[in-house]
């Protein structure tokens, strides 16, 4: 949208030029230029009818290609526009027969009705000036001519005689002021009373020297009943070298003036406010030079207002911060965008202190007038951040220590299974998580395995993990069903004060049969690495612990093929934001299938292949288990000669005897006799030191042979209960022999298994 006020001012200026006796050709040339500018036209041409009336001579123009000016075109409206490839055009007749002025644009519908009106105005000025140029001798009365011209323009115009008395105001002026002025009055009478004196003084001074007159004042405005700011320009006018008075125009500049005044007023108020504010404040001009800093700023820097003006304030910025800070400021200034930065500024104590500085562009009306900014001292916070970081790191270390201390340092040796586990804390910076793993041997002889991941990080998560781990140990001992264990822990968690959420995989393995039962509470599935490939155990899935109450927890069962390993893990191993989980699980299965048989190697291989080098982002727990094949023909053990070894001996015997197919009663009685012999060996050992005893058991052809050998000397009878022990051995075995060897005793026992033995 083009500016109507600007068009009117341009028209007024053109009219003034015409009336002050400008040379006609120069006027035509200026008119074309002014029209092109005000109409934002691509080309403007002034065409004059040839004398024979058969063609149009291109007199002058703006934006025209070479060769057009001076050429003659056929009389054909719109011809030039077509030749120039214009998409839209407007034109206006100049004078009654002089020619036309036309404007073209490459843009469709470029011109408005107001544009056309403006071009008519220009044509009017040119027409009047052309008539005058052509008939100077005939047109003695230039005033009449001017009136005719002036009344055709919407601008405000006036004329005086040589005495300075107004002899003419045009129609535009009369409309503006309400039409009371006539010839013979001083134009200043329509000025605002407050402006009158200054206006008259300027006018008189200009008059006395016959100079250009220029003045801004408030002129009475009929339509609003008040006054509006105008810019008045007056030019001395001469006729035949003789001063005959002034010709002048007035342009409405009310909007600009009031805006500037409002700006000045608000600026004053703002500065007063800014000075009372404790914050540091500043403003700049459009070039980014400082125009104001408040008292808060000066108190900080200890400098004077003048020292801070312009660009010199930047001298106070710490040398290390100056370059990046100024670069970002220049960039924001260029784009007139908001800017903020943190940098060290020289304080009045001579030290540098961190400040946070933020500037926003000031727009008044729709004009960018500079920046206004505020800065605050963030030195304490900034230095505190460093200290906080230390505290944070310390907490991370504590959490990691806690985490590791809660995890079993070495997995307990469990008869009949191989085990391996790894725990990797998440990368530095990411706080420690709540991942854990655990293994326990249930009273029913099955092995319970658990991996879990407590939501959250830091000390709290690590502590919650410890609680959950113990809860699993407790319920795992009591409850046979995995889903029931998980359900009980969910109830425990939901009834607690500090609610935690955790994903858990709880699995129970029967070493003898390879049967597994598991419940996956929001946890990724366990992986079976069978001799013919790796696959996930699907099913048994439910919501995480601590997510819902009541919640339904499911379990599923499967049988591991002989020779399989099981891999349990937390999602830190497989979760990555940039890859779908599906793909990561496939990668895991592939890596596990390609790994060696040994479980420690399996863990390392999976970590290397799936996680890659470096610390993982989140923490990772991995637990691998493999049921070992059962020896059912022979076992050979060397155990420390201490009472505590008896429980271990019983575990080993239990698996072996189970494999031979002995009944429950037989298993108990055989175990009891071997342990009685072992108990004897323990009692005979020379002191507690490194003494050991050996147990060899053979099963062949339905007959079981057990040999217990020690390094002490056998005593037949020592107290009543030892006697009872021997009685038990003799009664429960088919055949018992005690042999004394050098430095030791050997008990050989035999019993048939699977027969109905008489008591």
């Amino acid at each position, binding site marked *: 949208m083009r500016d109507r006020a600007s068009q009117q001012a341009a028209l007024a200026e053109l009219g003034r030029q015409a009336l002050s006796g400008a040379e006609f050709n120069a006027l035509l040339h200026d008119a074309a230029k002014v029209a092109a500018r005000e109409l934002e036209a691509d080309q403007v041409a002034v065409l004059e009818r040839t004398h024979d009336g058969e063609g149009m001579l291109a007199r002058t123009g703006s934006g025209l290609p070479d060769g057009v000016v001076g050429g003659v075109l056929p009389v054909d409206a719109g011809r030039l526009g077509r030749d120039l490839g214009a998409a839209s055009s407007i034109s206006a007749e100049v004078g009654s027969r002089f020619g036309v002025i036309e404007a073209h644009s490459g843009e469709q519908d470029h011109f408005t009705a107001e544009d056309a009106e403006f071009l008519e105005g220009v044509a009017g000025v040119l027409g009047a000036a052309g008539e005058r140029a052509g008939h100077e001798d005939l047109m003695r009365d230039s005033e009449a001519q001017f009136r005719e011209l002036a009344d055709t323009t919407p601008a405000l115009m006036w004329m005086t005689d040589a005495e300075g008395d107004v002899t003419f105001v045009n129609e535009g002026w009369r409309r503006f002021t309400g039409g009371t002025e006539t010839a013979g009055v001083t134009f200043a009478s329509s000025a605002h009373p407050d402006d009158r004196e200054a206006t008259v003084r300027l006018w008189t001074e200009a008059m006395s020297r016959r100079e250009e007159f220029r003045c801004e004042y408030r002129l009475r405005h009929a339509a609003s009943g008040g006054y509006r700011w105008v810019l008045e320009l007056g030019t001395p006018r001469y006729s035949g070298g003789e001063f005959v008075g002034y010709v002048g125009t007035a342009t409405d500049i009310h909007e600009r003036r009031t805006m500037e005044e409002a700006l000045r007023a608000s600026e004053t108020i703002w500065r007063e406010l800014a000075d009372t504010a404790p914050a540091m404040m500043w403003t700049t001009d459009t070039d980014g030079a400082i125009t104001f800093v408040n008292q808060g700023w000066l108190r900080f820097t200890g400098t004077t207002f003048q020292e801070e003006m312009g660009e010199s304030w930047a001298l106070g910025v710490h040398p290390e911060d100056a370059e990046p800070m100024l670069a970002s400021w220049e960039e924001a200034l260029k784009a007139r965008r908001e800017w903020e930065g943190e940098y060290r500024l020289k304080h009045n104590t001579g030290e540098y202190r961190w400040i946070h500085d933020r500037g926003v562009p000031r727009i008044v009306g729709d004009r960018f007038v500079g920046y206004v900014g505020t800065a605050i001292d963030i030195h304490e916070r900034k230095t505190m951040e460093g200290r906080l970081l230390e505290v944070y790191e310390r907490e991370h270390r504590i959490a990691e220590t806690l985490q590791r201390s809660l995890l079993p340092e070495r997995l307990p040796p469990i008869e009949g299974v191989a085990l391996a586990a790894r725990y990797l804390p998440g990368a530095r910076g990411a706080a420690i998580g709540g991942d854990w793993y655990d293994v326990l041997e249930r009273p029913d002889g099955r092995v319970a395995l658990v991996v879990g991941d407590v939501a959250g990080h830091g000390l709290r998560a690590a502590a919650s993990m410890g609680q959950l781990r113990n809860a699993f140990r407790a319920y795992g001992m009591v409850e046979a069903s995995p889903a029931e264990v998980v359900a009980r822990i969910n109830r425990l968690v939901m009834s607690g004060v500090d609610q935690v959420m955790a994903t858990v995989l709880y699995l129970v393995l029967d070493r003898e049969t390879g049967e597994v039962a598991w419940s996956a509470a929001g946890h990724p599935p366990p992986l079976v690495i069978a001799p013919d490939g790796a696959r996930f155990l699907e099913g048994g899935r439910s919501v995480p612990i601590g997510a819902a109450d009541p919640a339904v927890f499911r379990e599923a069962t499967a049988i591991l093929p002989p020779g399989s390993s099981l891999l349990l893990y937390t999602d830190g191993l497989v979760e990555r934001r940039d890859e779908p989980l599906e793909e990561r699980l496939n990668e895991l299965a592939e890596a596990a299938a390609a790994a060696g048989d040994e479980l420690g190697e399996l863990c390392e291989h999976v970590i290397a292949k799936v996680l890659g080098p470096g610390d993982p982002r989140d923490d990772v727990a991995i637990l691998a288990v493999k049921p070992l094949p059962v020896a059912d023909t022979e076992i050979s053990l060397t155990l420390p000669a201490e*009472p505590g070894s008896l*429980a271990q001996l*019983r575990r080993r015997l239990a698996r072996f005897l189970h494999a031979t197919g002995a009944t429950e009663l037989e298993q108990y009685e055989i175990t009891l006799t071997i342990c009685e012999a072992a*108990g004897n060996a323990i009692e005979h050992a020379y002191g507690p030191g490194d003494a050991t005893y050996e147990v060899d058991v053979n099963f062949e052809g339905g007959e079981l042979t057990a040999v217990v050998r020690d390094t002490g000397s056998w005593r037949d009878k020592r107290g*009543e209960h030892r006697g*009872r022990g021997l009685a*038990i051995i003799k*009664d*429960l075995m088919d055949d018992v022999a005690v042999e004394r060897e050098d430095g030791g005793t050997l008990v050989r026992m035999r019993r048939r298994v699977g027969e109905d033995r008489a*008591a």
Partner: protein
Amino acid sequence: MTAPAEIVLDRRDGSVVARLSGEVDMSNATYVRDQLLASMPNEALALVLDITGTRYLDSAAIEVLFDVSRRLARRRQELRLVMPAESPLRRVIELTEVHTAAPVFGSLEEALS
């Protein structure tokens, strides 16, 4: 390391009921004996030891039964044993003639009546 064993105590009709679960061998026999003796207040008439849930007893444990019975007798208190007929421990209990020190009942109710 000692064998895992637990004793759960209860008062019933002037008697103390002790449920022994887990395993008792020479590593924890003395401990079990001391716990059983300590559980008996002077006014109690009998200690009813229920070995229904006991998985393993060896000769050291049998010795405990005799010892406890002897000590209780000195305080005019009685030891009674509860063991179901189908218990795998039955043969050992019979073999070692535990019934000479403590009467054996098939159920808790019988032992209390």
